[in-house]
């Protein structure tokens, strides 16, 4: 037999969803204080709030794209007007000059390719590393850095998450057993608690 901390209002080792789930998996659920439905409901609530945030981000992105499109359309209109102006006055408006950014980028790309080639020749994997099974990937170049990745195959078998999940799920389901039994006092109390009905006084009325 083991004793576990107890309290009048909440479990001293935490009353959050993670703490309740941990105790369920350990088999130390405090049936007087822990809400057995909290982990599942907390999970769903988290998912809803995560999706809400994702929706807001997607909407923001959509608005940004619409604004960008509107700006591009405005620019086209300006360019049309400038062309009409050119017909009348013969002056070339700066709006009609093309953007040369892609060409400049092309130059940077070429330089990068050169560095890649040169660095790939210079870089040799140390013998100790290649002996223990490390291999290197092609060199990558960013604006400020030259990156070489080395990798190795795992020799061990990874943990089978599904199997572990099944094992823990069984324990957690067992932890709910006292709330399933027909004659259980915990079941009665939990039903009252979930229904948010006032608790019946257990003794004569207070003086």
């Amino acid at each position, binding site marked *: 037999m083991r*004793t*576990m901390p*107890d309290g009048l*209002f909440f479990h001293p080792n935490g009353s959050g969803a993670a703490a309740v789930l941990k105790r369920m998996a350990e*088999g130390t659920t405090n049936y007087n204080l822990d809400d057995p439905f909290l982990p599942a409901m907390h999970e769903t609530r988290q998912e809803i709030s995560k999706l809400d945030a994702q929706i807001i981000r997607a909407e923001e992105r959509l608005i940004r794209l619409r604004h960008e499109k509107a700006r591009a359309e405005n620019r086209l209109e300006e360019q049309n007007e400038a062309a009409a102006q050119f017909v009348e006055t013969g002056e070339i408006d700066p709006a009609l000059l093309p953007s040369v950014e892609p060409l400049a980028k092309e130059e940077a790309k070429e330089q990068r390719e050169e560095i890649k080639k040169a660095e790939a020749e210079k870089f040799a994997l140390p013998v100790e590393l290649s002996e223990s099974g490390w291999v290197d990937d092609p060199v990558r170049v960013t604006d400020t850095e030259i990156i070489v990745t080395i990798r190795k195959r795992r020799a061990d078998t990874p943990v089978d998450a599904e199997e572990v999940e099944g094992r823990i799920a069984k324990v957690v389901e067992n932890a709910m057993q006292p709330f399933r039994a027909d004659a259980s*006092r915990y079941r009665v109390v939990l039903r009252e608690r979930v229904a948010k009905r006032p608790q019946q006084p*257990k*003794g004569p009325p207070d003086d």
Partner: protein
Amino acid sequence: MKHAPNIAPNVSRDFTLPLEVYGGELLTFELPDLGGEWQPLPEHFLEGISFTSRFTASGSHYPWWMQTVHVFGGSIIGTNNRAIVEYSAGEGELECALSVKQVRLIKAIGSRPTQVNTPARPTADKYLHFKWQNGSRLALSRLMRPEQRLRKLFSRVAWNEFSAVDENWRAQILGHFSFKPIKDNSGLITIYPERVTGGVFDNRADIELPIKTPTEREVVFEQAHLLSVLKVASEIKFIHEGDHSKLLFKADNVRGFLAARQRVPS
């Protein structure tokens, strides 16, 4: 010694108070405005708040209402998640929650406050004013409302059929179990109908005291909480609901209960 008559006292007669350099401006002090009418405080208000503040919790993982004492008119309640106590201080209408620091401040004045002034609609920027017999005044900011659900706990248990605590019985328990538990142990004390056991390690009972107790079956408490309750209790009673047990206790103007630890099969 011949120079003694020549020694002049090196003390200036013009005393300057430190605050006078600001033209005395800092010395003028105005109390915040009164919110309502002066009301009398319960007779044992000071004893009540200082007693219940011993049963409050401290630490950021406890909610604010466990770090305060709650005043509901005449009854003053404090809890630390293991024990909850109610002190009947007399007649009064004040409803507020006082932090332990505020309780210390009131205690530091030396005598009991006799009158209180609360704002009609309590908000965070209003003050709670206390007045003493000799005219002293104290204004506390951040007026907190008490936690109502603490009152309801007391009506859920039966406050009858208590057994009196014998001085000899109390002295034996306190004498045997007032040891310091080893680090990371809470010094669990198990109470059986015929004996009490405990020890410096939680998983091994080193001390056994054969003594009759009013419990019907074994219950486990932490040393610090059990002893603090037994020191003040004059009547006790054990109640069991399922696998959960409580120790109910009463003393002069005081009643409360203590949650037992729960045993789980390992």
